[in-house]
């Protein structure tokens, strides 16, 4: 077989991803970001375990604006990943695969993630 005329998969530079594709890569990115966030989670646990002094120091660091930015970024990433994760579980049941529901559910899950984020921001 010659390698000259073989079919190509769509090039990402020229192919406009459908909304499900965009959500899919964002799901991955948020997953990696949340995994890195686990290091910060463990750091917070260590500070709680080390006593009141380090606990207060940790609260001081976490109140800095860029830590707050990462913190709320982490929480939005969590809700995004959770909502699309639920969608994956629906797909695993064999549901919502046809084209019309695909786009509609994409809007549902994005809205759900934003609503959950705003609610958390207001309550916490």
């Amino acid at each position, binding site marked *: 077989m010659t390698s000259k005329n073989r079919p190509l998969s769509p090039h990402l530079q020229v192919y406009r991803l459908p909304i499900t594709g965009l959500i899919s890569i964002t799901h*991955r990115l948020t*997953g*990696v970001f*949340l*995994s890195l966030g*686990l*290091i910060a*989670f*463990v750091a*917070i*646990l*260590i500070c*709680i*375990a080390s006593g*009141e002094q380090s*606990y*207060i120091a*940790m*609260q001081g660091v*976490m*109140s800095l604006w860029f830590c707050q930015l990462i*913190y709320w970024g982490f*929480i939005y990433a*969590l809700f995004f990943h*959770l909502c699309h*994760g*639920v969608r*994956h*579980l629906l797909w*695993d049941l064999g549901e919502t695969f046809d084209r019309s529901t695909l786009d509609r559910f994409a809007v549902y899950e994005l809205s759900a993630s934003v609503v959950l984020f705003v609610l*958390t921001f207001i309550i*916490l």
Partner: protein
Amino acid sequence: MSFNEISEKAAELLNVKSAVAHWRYQRLTAVALVPLSIWLLLLLNKALHAPYAETLHWLAAPLNTFAILAWTVAVIYHAALGVQVVLEDYVSTLTCRHAAIRASNLAFLSIGIIALISIILIFLR
């Protein structure tokens, strides 16, 4: 090579049995993490804003201790499985890929152990 031989060879190379287990545990931990995420948010909210004694008191409640322990175990497993898939997709050289997956698993295992030790130390306070 017949089709059956090819598919058997492929199954052997791709380690199909562990792939099925990978799929199953990724879903199992995902389902567990949906409700447990509430406790993560509650803990973070306490840890970032509440006085020290209040956070300790909250963590000492049996339901909260259990939920945070369960979240930690599930999330470490879920993250390790997820990062493995990412590495399998983007690291094409097999020796590098296996080394990267092993390194990532080791990192997650260490994070998990440190987290569990911290939770036990907090509980003993």
